[in-house]
């Protein structure tokens, strides 16, 4: 699998705009061809990775011990005939190789099978819950990336100062806090209310169920506040630390001294000269985080009863509901592959040396 993190990253030096000859045999055409080749290579790699995921997901989850039919009917009044019928219904009575060929054939046509426990197509179950997860973790990742970038930049620029110490100290403390514990504290403080703090947010869920139109949007936003705050609080430290350290690496560079010597204001030197060069490691991390968005956060989704994929994955594993586990595995891995691909495709644009 190709990963963004293995791609060479830009260093302090930067290339200037190269005077180019126009024409079909000129450097621009060559570089376009090189880029196309690079893109084709990355696309091919992604396709191979996706196929590997399909195969792995089938066999990996067959290793999980347990008889799914017996487990899902445990505690219920079922006869041996019913168990046999359920097995037939889900194709579990077939030999493994036949189950595998059936699975591959169906997966290629977009059919991920039928969930054992919900009796519904896996694709439908996932698409029902995907938007909620994308919304929650997507917003959180965007906010904590921006916040981390901003605070990381500030911290590095005035490193060693009180602001830097407080900033990194708070971030590291929050990073070490378990998300479910912080979530529960927020619920007790801001949902139920303590002392003079009134309970102003819902204790869980994604909507109240009786709003529509704009009221629905504000209702969902209202429900999102605490889970987003939890995810941001425990997540922004990572971006902050990466941004801080890569900017610190840049700080002694000659080109910054030159920029200052030109008489540019300090914050312009930081924003226009230092930050762009220090950005690449952070971009890699942001994309990896975006890849995780689909998987959501099982703990935060559980504490805030958010109807997303995290909870679905937990339920699928506890049965084990093989088609659902496999489907979710493919979606999660697919999202990572896609995000890595996007990062790979973006690199040559951020750093022209990549892909040549």
């Amino acid at each position: 699998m190709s990963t963004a993190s293995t791609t060479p990253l830009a260093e302090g030096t930067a290339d200037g705009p190269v005077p180019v000859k126009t024409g079909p045999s000129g450097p621009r055409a060559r570089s376009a061809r090189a880029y196309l080749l690079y893109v084709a290579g990355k696309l091919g790699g992604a396709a191979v990775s996706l196929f590997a995921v399909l195969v792995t997901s089938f066999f990996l989850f067959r290793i999980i011990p347990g008889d799914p039919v017996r487990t899902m009917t445990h505690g219920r009044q079922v006869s041996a005939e019913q168990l046999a019928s359920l097995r037939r219904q889900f194709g579990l009575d077939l030999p493994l190789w036949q189950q595998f060929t059936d699975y591959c054939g169906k997966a290629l046509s977009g059919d991920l099978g039928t969930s054992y426990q919900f009796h519904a197509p896996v694709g439908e179950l996932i698409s029902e819950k995907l938007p909620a997860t994308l919304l929650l973790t997507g917003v959180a990742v965007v906010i904590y990336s921006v916040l981390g970038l901003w605070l990381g930049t500030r911290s590095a620029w005035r490193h060693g100062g009180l602001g830097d110490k407080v900033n990194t100290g708070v971030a590291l403390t929050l990073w070490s806090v378990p998300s479910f514990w912080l979530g529960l504290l927020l619920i007790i403080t801001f949902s139920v209310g303590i002392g003079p703090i009134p309970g102003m947010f819902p204790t869980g869920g994604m909507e109240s169920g009786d709003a529509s139109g704009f009221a629905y949007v504000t209702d969902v936003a209202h429900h999102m506040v605490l889970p987003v705050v939890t995810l941001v609080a425990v997540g922004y430290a990572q971006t902050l630390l990466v941004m801080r350290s890569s900017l610190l690496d840049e700080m002694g560079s000659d080109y910054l001294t030159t920029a200052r010597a030109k008489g540019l204001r300090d914050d312009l030197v930081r924003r226009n000269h230092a930050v762009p060069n220090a950005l690449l490691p952070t971009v890699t991390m942001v994309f990896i985080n975006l890849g995780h968005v689909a998987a959501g956060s099982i703990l935060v989704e559980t504490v805030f009863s958010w109807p997303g994929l995290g909870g679905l994955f937990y339920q699928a594993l506890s049965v084990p509901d093989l088609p659902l586990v496999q489907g979710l595995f493919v979606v999660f891995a697919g999202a990572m592959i896609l995000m890595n691909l996007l990062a790979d495709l973006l690199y040559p644009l951020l750093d022209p040396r990549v892909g040549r």
Partner: protein
Amino acid sequence: MDTTTVPRNARPHPHIRTLLAVGATALAIAAAAATPLNPAPQQAKAAGSDGKRTLTVAVSQSVDSLSPFLAQRLVSTSVHRLVYENLTNYDVKDNHAIPGLATKWEPSPDKLTWTYTIRENSKWSDGKQATAEDAAWTFNTMMSDEGAATANGSFVANFKKVTAPSPTKLVIELKKPQATMAALDVPIVPKHAWEKVGDFSKFNNDKKFPIVGNGPFVLTDYKVDQYVKLKPNKQFWRGAPKFDELVLKYYKDGDAAVAALQKGEVSFAANLTPAQAASLSKAKNIKVNDAPGRRFYALATNPGAKSKDGKKFGNGHPALLDPKVRQALFAATDRKTIIDKVFQGHAVEGEGYIPPRFAAYHWKPADGQKIAYDPAKAAALLDEAGYKKNSAGKRVGKNGKPLDFRILCHATDPNDKAIGKYMQEWWGELGIGLKVDCLDNVSDPWLAGEYDLAFDGWSVNPDPDFVLSIHTCAALPATPKDTGATDNFICDKKFDELYAQQTAEYDETKRADLVKQMQSRLYDTGYMNVMAYPNAVEAYRTDQIKSITTMPASGGNLWGQDGYWSWWSAVPADADGSSEDSGSSTGLVVGIGAAVVLAAGLGVFVALRRRSTAEDRE
């Protein structure tokens, strides 16, 4: 280096600004949303601002299906109890069968034909009459379609033929006598709404609302893992429920559900831990209901796993085949400590197999029969069985091997782990080693017979047939590779004889006596020993619910009843002062929220201004 080269890499800069702007906007929106501009929907009050009285119940289990042919989980079957009528219902006082959709039922003299009289005053929520034809169609569909038999197929396994000679007469012919004919927990569905269904194994009944039913409630809306909404069925023959709406709302985390109850967002929460119950018992306007449960919690031993064809499999400890060893282990288990320390008082000490809640079938061992906690007796029994202590204090068999057992424990159940620790200590003093194997999925070693002991537990129905059937020889797997309906491979001829007798016994008193004899036999053989009956611990808001019927009516529970009594009977509390309290603070919070939004907006504006002028200067 030429500084003119820098701007090329500085291109992402405008993006950062955009990202910052987006982030700032998101934060501002979050801050704006933080102000409870519209707090009413968050408060599941007994009487909302529109006068609508909503009863909100916190649930955690996902609905597996809204089709009664497929649904197996408690939350789904509880919903079906409210939406569809079964032929019979259970009396709220003592669980005996009472009329449901059927007003009368009687067997033929040969015990093979049952005739039910269907009531004339039950209508489907779309206005059509509910008839015997609907019931016959429901049963026939389950008998002829494998998919439709998924959830309740075992109820019709012994049916030969089901007919509806008239709209009020249903006739069920059996292959052999069956004592559970007044306890058929099968929701009857409207034929006219269901006969168009193509594949019953995939139809989940969750796309079109309201769902046509004839129970006390009509299912009006459902969103996966968010809520199930029900409205009263005004035409319900027993009378419509008093609340204007019943909402099952999802809380995946128990502590969050308790927080919601404290806040008043929900009216009821079940499955409380001892700590949650203790904290809620001090809260204002909340009543904790600590009711006798319908579950038993037992210590099961592997009696030597074997299949119906007589083949032995698994690796259960041979010492456990000796009744004296089994008896010693149980005599060395202090049930009182388990109740006091592990369940913290929210359980009753176990004896017979059927919990005391089902009084008609509950059995207690006689004085001489009872295995009390007695470590000295346990030691004597082990000595008699030939497992004497060696110099190191370990019990050793005649073959010189120390007596070491494994016990299967559910990793998700804290009680299993805690009790396992106590047992290690008690049995350790006797000289027995115990390894507690806590697994996420215990089914695999269990089905393979690869265990010595296991923590076992079942929820018992008002009719005990099923929990007894899982210990019959007929429930064993056909071959070691198959899976039977057996719980832990018990196969005892005497138990089987009694089981066959009770199945065919239509006299309730005589049947109850047979059921008690079966429990006595199970107790004496000692393959399975009940340690406790855990209570159902739940809580509700008294400022939202004025009164509600428990089952059993005196001191019973509310969630997961055999019937629709709790939510059907709930009466809303008239007083509602909670919104008054939050009025002043709401104003304060709105003010603070507005100030935060204003400050955030101002900050973003100033920052952008500074940036643009800085760029101009550059």
